[in-house]
């Protein structure tokens, strides 16, 4: 079997979430788990690793920010290819309470996490802090309402605008006020600096290093541990990650770019 061959979809739905971010909805059940990723592609355009945005066994959703060659062209593609799922997932089943901290385009795998926890009646065990650069960069308006029905949700922006009445400030500022009990887990995903600061804040707030998990972004070509691009010290982010236990990787000097 050729593991590089994607499954192709001609029928799919494209939903714009903001001026640079869109969701691709594929008519296929997601065998993967929250935190895992797939290689999304289109013939002639190329492949990119994208986290699954829906929960285990839901229809596949991928929310993508247009940043370069592949991600800017996928919205115009007539065929979407997908292979996976790959990598590790958020270990939410092992914990009583969970605080998820997401910055920017880090939010899709947290939506997936929410899906899964709600699906087993554990939505109330989740707390979400989600931050974006500006109000217009905040995505998932509908989903955010769903989260808020179950979970404690804090939304914040780095910089507001005249119509913005919500929180202003980095996600890190809200960690110490978290309602999640300190034996719980913290799941962190976002830009490198945001993750670094969020780890520091979580430790400061009393969470334990072995209960903090990070989703690390690295350049990925293969997704299956053979192209050598995604290493984080002795680990490959595509097979040992992308979700890493902080205590297992904190010794690595290249952890945060």
């Amino acid at each position, binding site marked *: 079997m050729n593991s*590089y*061959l994607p499954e192709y979809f001609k029928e799919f739905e494209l939903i714009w979430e903001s001026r640079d971010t869109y969701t691709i909805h594929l008519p296929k059940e997601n065998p993967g788990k929250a935190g895992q990723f797939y290689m999304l592609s289109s013939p002639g355009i190329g492949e990119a690793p994208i986290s699954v945005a829906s929960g285990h066994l839901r229809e596949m959703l991928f929310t993508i920010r247009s940043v370069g060659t592949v991600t800017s062209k996928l919205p115009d593609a007539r065929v979407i290819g997908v292979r996976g799922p790959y990598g590790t997932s958020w270990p939410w089943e092992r914990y009583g309470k969970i605080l998820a901290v997401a910055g920017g385009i880090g939010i899709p795998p947290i939506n997936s996490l929410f899906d899964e926890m709600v699906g087993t009646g554990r939505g109330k065990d989740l707390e979400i802090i989600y931050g974006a650069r500006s109000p217009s960069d905040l995505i998932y308006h509908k989903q955010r309402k769903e989260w808020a029905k179950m979970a404690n949700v804090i939304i914040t922006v780095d910089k507001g605008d005249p119509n913005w009445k919500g929180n202003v400030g980095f996600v890190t500022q809200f960690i110490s006020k978290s309602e999640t009990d300190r034996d719980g887990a913290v799941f962190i995903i976002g830009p490198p600096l945001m993750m670094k600061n969020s780890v520091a804040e979580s430790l400061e707030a009393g969470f334990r290093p072995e209960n903090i998990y990070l989703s690390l972004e690295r350049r990925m070509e293969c997704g299956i541990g053979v*192209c050598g691009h995604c290493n984080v010290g002795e680990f490959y982010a595509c097979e040992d990650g992308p979700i890493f236990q902080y205590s297992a990787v904190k010794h690595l000097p290249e952890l945060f770019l």
Partner: protein
Amino acid sequence: MNYILTDEDMKILFSRIKEEYDTYGTVEKEGDIVYEKVDGFESITFGRSRYAPKEFLIERNENVLNLPVQQKKAVFGVMSCDLKGFYVMDKQILGKDPFYTQRRQNTLFVNFPCNVECEGGFCSSFGGPLLDEFQIQVARDGDDFIVSASKEYEHLFDGFRKTGDEQIRKLRKNFLKNAKQLPVEGIENRIKWDSKLWKKYSSVCISCGACNYSCPTCYCFDLFDQDDGRIREWDSCILSGFTSTSAGNVRKELDERLRQRFYHKFVYYRKSQGEYLCTGCNRCTEDCPVDIDIKEVVTHDYSSE
């Protein structure tokens, strides 16, 4: 099992192998030794090929959307340092990459261990050149060929004279007498993240990637779409785009990338797979246009920094 074969026996062995496999071997061409299709044992030149034979398993450039049916190939004349490269890479790649895996399973490498260590080479630092793992190994002791076969190839040796381990042990002893065994063991603990070596190297390295391309254990590749294909092409961790992402680049500077190459070989792979990702072939050093010598990374006195 070990066998003593004469030159005539080797020809018989070759033809038995040829019944099952397409046969390739090292031949001399315009001053270089290269791998080519060969029809008889007498066409094979003993000597190290200009390029490592990793292309038999990882092509420079190929379309991953099209997995061809693999021919059974037998490759004669592989140096032990190059052969060891396959066993080391297997740990990370075998069973995961379908191209590598299918070719590995359909290729019989017949390795020719050296009798004296080559200039610059340091295979004895990694257990070479008489290895514990091989398919068919052809050592030379005077006019005798001491041929060792792993189990699945025993059927090719019907009627040949069996022998014990004495000659192999003698060859190993003779080899080690004049070999430069480097203090590799424990390098993963001695090497320093902030060593001045990395900047010393980056001040001269021209980022040509030759060290990666020539190496029998460098397996990294890039994937990109071209025409109707998704092309996998040998890549180099020395190039700046290797780790660039939308979130930034973990190794913006050349010294960081050079350090990565040596850390992968001597620290990371040792931790993840229990082995060094180097076989001491010295190809990277020979092919480096600015004479960066990997042996220095092993022998350097980090404790004085």
